């Protein structure tokens, strides 16, 4: 059968495509509501109500925003470098979305029998992983992609041909490079304890470890990671590339309409990614202690509960982000650099060395 063989070849791609769509859908929805949540929370913190006109309690606000972005006039600065100007937001969002493919949304579903599928498509399929792509260097992949993300900002700043933008771009690239080091160093401890770079592998390693969550043995690493994560995502108190009060809006001063929306989305997706990494590396990912006693490991309910727990942990981090934004003032640039190079990096390295010693003696 011609059709059958084609289907058999195409089936994995179809499955992956569905997975990708679903993954993106989940993430984008969460991101959209993070924006709303931020406005609400900030409003409450400042004794305001926050958006409440569009839909009940303002729940449809994100869609209204989206509509506005789409319909607004797109202004392109006259002296800008056009190609790069258009490229920058695309780069930013693409790089932000790429890591979704390694998100460990939940444990693999292994108990379902897939043989009911027609044309024997389910033959030999034993597990349905809740990860889009299985890359055994997941951690490196995420870091790599996010580090490319800086181009979006830097190029946006350069191509706008505006001094505010340029300053923002310069700041962001300096900041990203500086804090990436501390971030990378802080993860090494976890990777050493886990013995793998695979995100799911790290989660499994946490299940088998004495402490269940790596935040306990690696609390220094956790804090360093968290702080660097704020810097990497350009969030307050490290939002110098945007810095409304000094740089107007930093790198995206000259952007408007949909292109601005892309940057905006990229920032929130990055937040989500970083929260995800934090969860996976330090808080056990989707793992809920004791859940295996209630549901069979690999069954659908187990996966669903795990997934919900995973999203919950991430949301907790997102709330933390918003909280910090509501409370802390912005750093000065030299303070930011000093803090990154002279405090975070040494601490992270000390943590690495300490972990090496511990691992060495425990493993003997």
């Amino acid at each position, binding site marked *: 059968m011609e059709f059958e063989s084609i289907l058999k070849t195409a089936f994995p791609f179809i499955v992956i495509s569905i997975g990708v769509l679903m993954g993106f859908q989940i993430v984008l929805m969460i991101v959209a509501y993070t924006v709303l949540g931020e406005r609400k929370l900030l409003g409450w913190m400042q004794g305001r109500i926050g958006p409440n006109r569009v839909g009940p309690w303002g729940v449809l606000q994100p869609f209204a925003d989206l509509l506005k972005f789409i319909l607004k006039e797109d202004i392109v600065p006259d002296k800008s470098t056009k190609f790069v100007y258009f490229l920058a937001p695309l780069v930013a969002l693409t790089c932000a979305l790429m890591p979704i493919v390694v998100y460990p949304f939940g444990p693999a579903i292994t108990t379902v029998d897939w043989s009911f599928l027609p044309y024997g498509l389910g033959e030999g399929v034993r597990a349905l992983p809740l990860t889009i792509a299985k890359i055994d260097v997941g951690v490196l992949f995420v870091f790599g992609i996010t580090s490319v993300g800086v181009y979006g900002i830097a190029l946006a700043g350069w191509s706008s041909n505006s001094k505010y933008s340029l300053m923002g771009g310069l700041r962001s690239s300096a900041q990203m490079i500086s804090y990436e080091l501390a971030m990378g160093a802080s993860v090494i401890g976890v990777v050493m*304890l886990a*013995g*793998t770079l695979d995100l799911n*592998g790290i989660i499994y*390693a946490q299940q*088998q*470890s004495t402490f269940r969550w790596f935040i306990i043995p690696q609390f220094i690493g956790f804090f360093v990671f968290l702080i660097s994560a704020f810097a990497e995502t350009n969030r307050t108190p490290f939002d110098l590339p945007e810095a409304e009060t000094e740089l107007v809006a930093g790198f995206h001063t000259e952007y408007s309409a949909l292109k601005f929306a892309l940057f905006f989305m990229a920032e929130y997706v990055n937040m989500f990614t970083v929260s995800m990494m934090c969860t996976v590396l330090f808080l056990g990912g989707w793992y809920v202690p004791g859940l295996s006693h209630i549901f069979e490991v690999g069954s659908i309910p187990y996966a669903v509960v795990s997934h919900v727990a995973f999203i919950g942990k991430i949301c907790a981090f997102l709330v933390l982000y918003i909280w910090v934004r509501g409370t802390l003032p912005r750093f000065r640039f030299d303070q930011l650099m000093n803090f990154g190079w002279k405090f975070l990096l040494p601490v992270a390295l000390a943590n690495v060395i300490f972990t090496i010693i511990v691992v060495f003696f425990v*493993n003997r």
Partner: protein
Amino acid sequence: MNMFLFAELTVPDPNVSVILPEMIVAVAGVIVMLYDSFFPKQRAVSGAIAIIGLALSAVVLATMWGGNVPATSWNGMIAHDNLRLSFSFVFLFVSAMTVLISTVWVERENVPAGEYHALLLFATFGMMMMSAGNDLVIIFLGLETLSIATYVMAGLRRADLKSNESAMKYFILGSFASAFLLYGMALIYGATGSTNLTEIAGKIAAPNFPVNFPALLLAGGAMMVIGFGFKIAMAPFHIWTPDVYEGAPTPVTAFMAAGPKAAAFASFLRVFVLGLPLVAGVQASGYLHESWTTALAVMAMVTIIVGNVAAIMQDNVKRMLAYSSIAHAGYALVGFIGAGMAKTDQARDEAIASVAFYMLTYAVTNMGAFAIVTLLSQKNDRRTQFEDYNGIGFKSPLLAFSLSLFMLSLFGLPLTAGFMGKILVFSSALGSGNLLVTALVVVAVIGSAISAYYYLRMIVVMFFRERTTEWIAPKITTAIGAVLVIAVIGVFYLGLFSDGLIQRFSRPGAAVITKAEK
């Protein structure tokens, strides 16, 4: 918790004692740096630490010469043989001299001494690794360590455009050359499936010739010749040399002319002579070997001629010395080709020793000459033209006669080190009895005759010309004085009583080498 698969592990072979000299140098670098950060502005102390480190390393190296050291260690990455030992001594000597020479300059230009000395020590570390490395990885990393340190050192005089320019040219062309070298290494790896030189040599020498792509050996060899050729300033890859040498601060120039060049020769020798050996009976290997020796012989001729002829036309002393260093690379290449064409292992070892000895003589002489140039040049190397040396001969006889001595030694006058070096490389080359090599030696000899002109010019301007402007002889500091004494004694010692040293360099019997245990 732990997911290592211990079954697959290669047993590491960390023999620290073998790389102890290198480690001492690197650690000394770190100490210098730390000391400088806690007690800044104590230039003399940081220099002293550097010298102590280098001396300590030399002592350890000397004990290893006769010691019971495995021939290869660190999983075959470090080779311990006369090539390594003799060249390492040259490097240590060069670096120690550079530290001494720099004292004047560091003071004059207000250079951060700690970092400078640290860089110098790391560069030395790189050089020593280059001579010890028995694996392409080590050679590459050593080379890069050396190069990167030297790029920075060349650009140390940051307020001076000349120095910046020098550093930039050196950086760009140096990394360009590294890329070629690396491509060559990749192709050699592709041809043999290994980066270990012992293994590569074994494969080339094996009777059944288990090399997958012999053609890649040829291409890789060519690329590596380009890469190494850049580093040793072999024509036509010498174009960077004059500008870089002229622009770099004088002590750094001294270092670059003697140290990195010797280091590049060390690994060049190791890769080509020991790694791609001449093996009778294996046609492909013989063909490969012949092609690189022939190519090198031709290039050596060009190098000698270009270096000498261009040196004649220079008005700047540093530039003249730069071209002369190109010519000297050509002379050393003569010995190199001798090593490549040697028919017996003994002859090969002797030829290698002759190159090492040549580099030593060149280092001694060169260091002395540059010490004087450093002393005489003012801030930002303003006084490095020949005119600035007019008639200083009898105003500062000590400096002038030492400089003349070094010039004559560079020329290769008998009784001096230069002569001994030259005669050794020439005889090791003539020993192969090849016609091309004989022609090469003749060219080299004609080249040295030409070189008489510009070396004598130095003497001529110093002694035979009259000085029109006022000139105050600079005070000879202790450090520079020490360099001069060492260099003058060295020139005569190497010229007259070098027998023991040559024997040491060439005779494997001097070192009791045991096979690696595993």
